[in-house]
């Protein structure tokens, strides 16, 4: 992929992860599956460090729940500041899209 597009794409990871748990809590494998589904495949090796950073920054929280097989899972939810950050990103994204659409006219 074009390196310019790759840089844009990298910046999208965090907002997409936040958006993936906007309406319902998910555990990491479900977040990975959701990202894959929309055409943004990300591996756990990338996802776990990011999720732990987001938790440290207070944007997501997790609760443990038993899984049918294997160890309990961490289900992630957005915190209030996580929601605020996602809203802020959407506003900014909208503004940027507006710019690129209108500047040349």
């Amino acid at each position: 992929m074009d390196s310019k597009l790759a840089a844009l794409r990298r910046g999208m990871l965090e907002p997409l992860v936040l958006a993936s748990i906007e309406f319902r809590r998910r555990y990491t494998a479900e977040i990975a599956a959701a990202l894959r589904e929309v055409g943004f495949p990300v591996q756990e090796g990338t996802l776990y460090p990011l999720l732990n950073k987001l938790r440290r920054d207070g944007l997501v929280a997790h609760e443990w729940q038993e899984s049918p097989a294997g160890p309990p899972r961490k289900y992630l939810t957005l915190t209030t500041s996580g929601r605020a950050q996602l809203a802020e990103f959407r506003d900014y994204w909208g503004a940027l899209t507006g710019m690129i659409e209108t500047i040349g006219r």
Partner: protein
Amino acid sequence: MESTKHMRLTGHADAFAVTHAAHERLLRYLAEARTALTADPDGDETIRDLEATLGDRLRAVLESSGGPVDDTQMARVLVETGPVQSHHPVGDPSPGRPLRGPFWCRIEEGKWFGGICVGIAARGEFRLDWVRTVVVLLMLVTAGFIGLVYLALLLLLPRVETVEEYRRLRDTPRSAT
């Protein structure tokens, strides 16, 4: 028949049967992950998360194949999980907190006696066989006196498990260790 090992992963109650080569491959992957997460304050947490996920995948492999996980299967599981990428900038772990820096210790990995020589070699970045040669020569020259020093160091120096662990501690901010 290749020798089978049983290894444990965080969160999983049962040990996983893996071949020797697969075991080595997994250890390499985890060591690389730890190196990548050196500057990450949540590195340990991330490693635990990864181990739990790897365990889920290995369990699925074991259930479908029955036998111990072989090297090819392990490679596939690790590719699926992907290389670990920290989201904290490397080399700037947390501004304002100085790194611990080099320190004296004794190291268990590859020790002959107390691991003092391994520790000295790691601390000074010397070659281990040279350090050992010098110590043995000193032993002869000082008629065993250096042996007493060695024993004293054995009591005084903190113990570190591996050279890699030493490097990780050295490159981690003080208050984070």
